[in-house]
């Protein structure tokens, strides 16, 4: 038998492969178009906020008090910077431990049980509550009795953060391989020890990402703060007593017809974006260092 009897294979493109190539190009183009449609607005927002915000943004802007007369030009957002850090920080301090412990209960203890299922449902309901309603809720149960305060704002923000943290943390805990829990249990460790020493460290980067998402969301919330924190023109470093926040100041200054106030609103918006960006970056660095150990 000679091999010459076998005809050379045709390696030319066929109609099928040409049409497949065309469809491939079309799909790739479509994906790029959707990416641009999603990314362009973001780019524009950042561009406009930076451009308009830079007119007033400076170190002075962060440490000077807000002018009492709106029409007065010049910097000043210190009370709002202090307020945002304080109120968001307090809300985080309330919501993160509660949320992570809740997620630990749901995933490590409650699992498919009736109580866990009920809590999951309630968490979903809670994350669907509009933020303004959450503000009203705190207004009725707290502010009417104890008055306007940064703490009341922190409570409202914590209520908004809680469901986000519970659900993201639970997802992250679920991703930890069951084999690790079994290995630890087989060594004679109780569920709680296993959770603290094996499961939570393994899920930490994801939990931090989820918490930062919630922090970013809370830092930008305006509605729940409108009737919970009041307003001040000098920094209030106490959680109690009236306070103010960047988001509330953006809302207030953008509403008035004076260019000076509008400039302050833009610079406050830039400050808020930078703040959330820096916090997210810091949290990533810290959790990456933890995860390596």
């Amino acid at each position, binding site marked *: 038998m000679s091999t010459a009897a076998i005809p050379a294979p045709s390696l030319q493109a066929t109609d099928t492969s040409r049409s497949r190539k065309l469809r491939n190009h079309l799909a790739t183009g479509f994906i790029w178009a959707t990416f641009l449609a999603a990314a362009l607005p973001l780019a524009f927002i950042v561009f406009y906020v930076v451009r308009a915000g830079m007119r007033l943004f400076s170190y002075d802007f962060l440490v000077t008090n807000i002018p009492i007369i709106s029409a007065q030009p010049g910097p000043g957002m210190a009370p709002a910077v202090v307020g945002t850090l304080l109120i968001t920080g307090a809300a985080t301090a309330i919501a993160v431990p509660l949320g992570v412990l809740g997620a630990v209960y749901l995933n490590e203890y409650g699992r*498919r049980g009736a109580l866990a299922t009920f809590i999951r449902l309630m968490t979903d309901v809670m994350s669907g509550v509009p933020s303004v309603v959450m503000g009203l809720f705190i207004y009725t149960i707290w502010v009417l009795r104890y008055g306007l305060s940064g703490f009341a704002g922190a409570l409202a923000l914590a209520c908004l953060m809680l469901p986000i943290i519970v659900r993201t943390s639970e997802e992250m805990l679920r991703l930890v391989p069951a*084999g690790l829990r079994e*290995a630890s*249990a087989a*060594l*004679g460790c*109780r569920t709680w020890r296993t959770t603290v020493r094996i499961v939570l460290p393994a899920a930490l980067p994801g939990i931090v990402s989820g918490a930062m998402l919630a922090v970013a969301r809370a830092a930008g919330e305006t509605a729940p703060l409108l009737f919970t924190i009041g307003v001040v023109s000098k920094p209030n470093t106490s959680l109690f007593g009236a306070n103010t926040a960047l988001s509330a100041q953006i809302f207030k200054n953008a509403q008035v017809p004076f260019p000076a106030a509008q400039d302050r609103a833009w610079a406050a918006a830039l400050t808020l974006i930078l703040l959330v960006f820096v916090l997210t970056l810091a949290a990533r660095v810290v959790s990456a260092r933890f995860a390596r150990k």
Partner: protein
Amino acid sequence: MEVMSETPFVPLTPRPAVAAVPDGPGDTAAVPVFETDALSVYYGSSLAVSDVKMAINRAEITALIGPSGCGKSTLLRCFNRMNDLIPGARVEGSVRYEGVDLYADGVDPIEVRRRIGMVFQKPNPFPKSIYDNVAYGPRVLKMKVDSMDDLVEEALRRAALWDEVSGKLKKSAMALSGGQQQRLCIARAIAVAPDTILMDEPCSALDPIATARIEDLMTELKHDYTIVIVTHNMQQAARVADRTAFLTAVVHEATGDRHGELVEFAPTATMFTAPSDERTEAYITGRFG
């Protein structure tokens, strides 16, 4: 009453038995560590393993073989109460460990598991350093140790892994090969000084060379530990086990449900040369029964 280890290192020697075993001459040979009687396991309402009666001897390797779904892993997990972790799992009958019923009231499954170690089918090192993987158990159990470094070295030596990892103890365990990871898991189990080690198909994710190393290791370890191994590799059972139990899946005629049953339990040589049950013979000769 205990076979003491030759090494002077105290924490790694097997612990004394929980309950009194009859002392005296004759108990060194074939002392049962585990005795099961009318042992059945249910997952929810479905029966997984039915009516197992067997005795597992000290300082021997006992293999559980049988086709998939015959309940050999389920049976193994009764010996350290790992089935407790599966929602809906329920055990009937008794499992006696050194004469004490593991499922009696007042028995703490945590205490059971620190005496009876386990190695799993898929190597599952913690995402920590090699050192921390081995030290994890002793630390969490707050074992009194003179030197953690010595304990880690000893455990890794016994698991035949020390030479390969001695220079990189602080490196992540996840970077090891599959076979090394499995030996690390064995070292981790040894580090808490168990009496018995349960192995659930420990070589099924490994290549033949890594498998041979683990098998050598088992033979080495059986002087100090009782080993129970689940395997679906009959050659492996024939190579390492002193005694072999054959389980098979039985179909209930009325309902069509399947459950596992112990067919035959005998010295490995007898099992593979002169099985007394024809189902065993069909299985070991490759005519799947």
